[in-house]
């Protein structure tokens, strides 16, 4: 897989899309379709979550099947903050990122010592452990999840207005994408991509590979935590379903549909998958069959998109 190099049209294109999105809520209100403001916010949030996994998987080359844990933890931190009276997002969101990131640091420190299938299964098992922990925690709602009685504020603005939440999500996604774009081209991005390509070589060049991987993994976890906190505000509920491993699978699917290791892979994947879900579902209740076949098709017939990027002869966890 090549190192990330943005296409020339990417920046102007992203900027155009951003401008269009700024006008979206107003347009939706004019056409009396304000439901789609919420839907668009959902896409933005999942774009953020998928991009965080893309950092870990696409740039860092770590096939983690436990990413939903960080996503869910972010949601729970937001809900717990809200119940505890911390309703300012400027406070709660960094807190969600911090807790999710720290937990990712812990999980990473334990699981990055393993390789291959073991890594996949251990990340999966840790996520499952978190899932059971939250299900058991009566104080945090157990099976039912923890509701937010009201949405939070962000810099004093109430997120109860769907439009405000949309703009906050858009702003945060833009900021994170900017960071990821810069990061990919900076020393750190170079380093983790090179480690993905050839771990031993990097070690032989004197890089402390484990440390770079770990930081990448934790950073991904923190961003996923931010997405979770936003999602809890959107749905008004921190649900244990967010922590389930199938959620990790869905995020993985988003990244792969969108393009592993491409800066906007997660964004595109989230958009495509949620659009498919929203509109195909109405016509064909069993659309997962179509999705499944599509994914298998990608694996079998578009190995350039997936497999060739992660050549087996090169090392990867």
């Amino acid at each position: 897989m090549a190192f990330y190099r943005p296409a020339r049209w990417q920046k102007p294109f992203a900027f155009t899309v951003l401008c269009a999105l700024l006008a979206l809520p107003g347009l939706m209100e004019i056409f009396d379709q304000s439901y789609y403001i919420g839907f668009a916010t959902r896409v933005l949030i999942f774009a953020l979550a998928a991009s965080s996994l893309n950092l870990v998987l696409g740039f860092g080359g770590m096939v983690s099947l436990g990413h939903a844990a960080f996503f869910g933890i972010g949601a729970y931190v937001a809900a717990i903050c809200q119940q505890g009276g911390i309703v300012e997002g400027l406070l709660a969101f960094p807190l969600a990122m911090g807790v999710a990131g720290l937990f990712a640091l812990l999980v990473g420190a334990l699981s990055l010592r393993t390789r291959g299938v073991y890594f996949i299964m251990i990340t999966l098992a840790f996520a499952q452990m978190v899932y059971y922990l939250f299900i058991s925690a009566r104080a945090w709602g157990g099976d039912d999840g923890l509701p937010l009685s009201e949405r939070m504020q962000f810099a004093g603005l109430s997120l109860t207005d769907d439009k405000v939440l949309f703009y906050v999500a858009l702003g945060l996604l833009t900021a994170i994408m900017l960071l990821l774009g810069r990061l990919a081209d900076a020393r750190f991005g170079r380093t983790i991509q090179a480690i993905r390509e050839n771990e031993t070589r990097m070690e032989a060049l004197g890089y402390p590979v484990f440390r770079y991987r770990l930081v990448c993994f934790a950073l991904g976890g923190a961003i996923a935590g931010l997405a979770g906190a936003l999602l809890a505000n959107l749905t008004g509920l921190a649900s244990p379903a967010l922590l389930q491993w199938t959620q990790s699978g869905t995020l993985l699917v988003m990244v792969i549909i969108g393009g592993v290791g491409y800066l906007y892979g997660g964004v595109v994947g989230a958009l495509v998958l949620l659009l498919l879900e929203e509109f195909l579902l109405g016509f064909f209740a069993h659309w997962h069959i179509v999705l499944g076949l599509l994914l298998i098709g990608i694996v079998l017939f578009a190995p350039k998109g997936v497999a060739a990027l992660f050549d087996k002869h090169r090392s990867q966890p």
Partner: protein
Amino acid sequence: MTQLFLEQALNGLQFGLMLFLLAAGLTLVFGIMDCINLAHGSLYMVGAYFVAAAAQAADSFWIGLGAGVAGAAVLGLLLELTLFRQLYRRDHLSQVLATFALILIANETVRLIWGPAPLMLNPPEALSGPVEIAGFFYPAYRLVIIAFGLAVAGLLYLLVAKSRVGMWVRAGASNREMTEALGINVRGLFTAVFVFGAALCALAGGLLGPLLAVQVGMGESVLILAFVVIIIGGIGSIRGALVGALIVGTVDTLGRALLPTLLRALLPADAAATLGPALASILIYLLMAAILFFKPQGLFPARA
């Protein structure tokens, strides 16, 4: 108290042996083909549906079980020939993606064919009651499950440890290239192992059907447990799968039964009962983490 303990131990054994049926196929596919198969749980689900449907059609549980297992084996064969064969040499990400896709397809197809509501599968009439052992009553059907599990474990032992095919399988698990170099038809061996794994899945699904419910999504939770089993046991090792399965089954059942009692001494009843089962399920993962810490390759590593 001893009676309670004995009954719970039997429950743990029954659960563990069923996990073993699932883990045996999974560990071989992992070990020999180096292929991560998330859809193993789906084979369990589809197998259970096959058994339930066949049992309903034939109005006999045993015929249904036989037909369902055979059906699952055929499905396994088709899957191996069309899809898995392509996946063995792919990277793990491709395997994860393709088999995750299989889960989606399997769940939706089952929902399409059999509807969203669970199917009911009843045990044979003669086994639906209890039998008396050592002074207490125990469900006859659970004893049958235990018998089946032990029989399969014995059979697998003979097959893997004593037969020529088993030797190839063991050789394949510890060193694939060497086995290939020895001129063994590895392709055919892979197919056979995969089909056998699918049949074991269906057997577990069919046997558990009357105890649980045959429903969409039943494969996902059990898949994780099977993973834990083979991580504990060591990927590629049948013996490891058996030991791992029994450990997980016993720890889970005893934890579920005894932790609430223990916690009740310390906490109010409902808090204890809430914490108990959850702690018991975490117990397995803690155990796994501990074993991995001391033996990163599991208890019985197949590869030197």
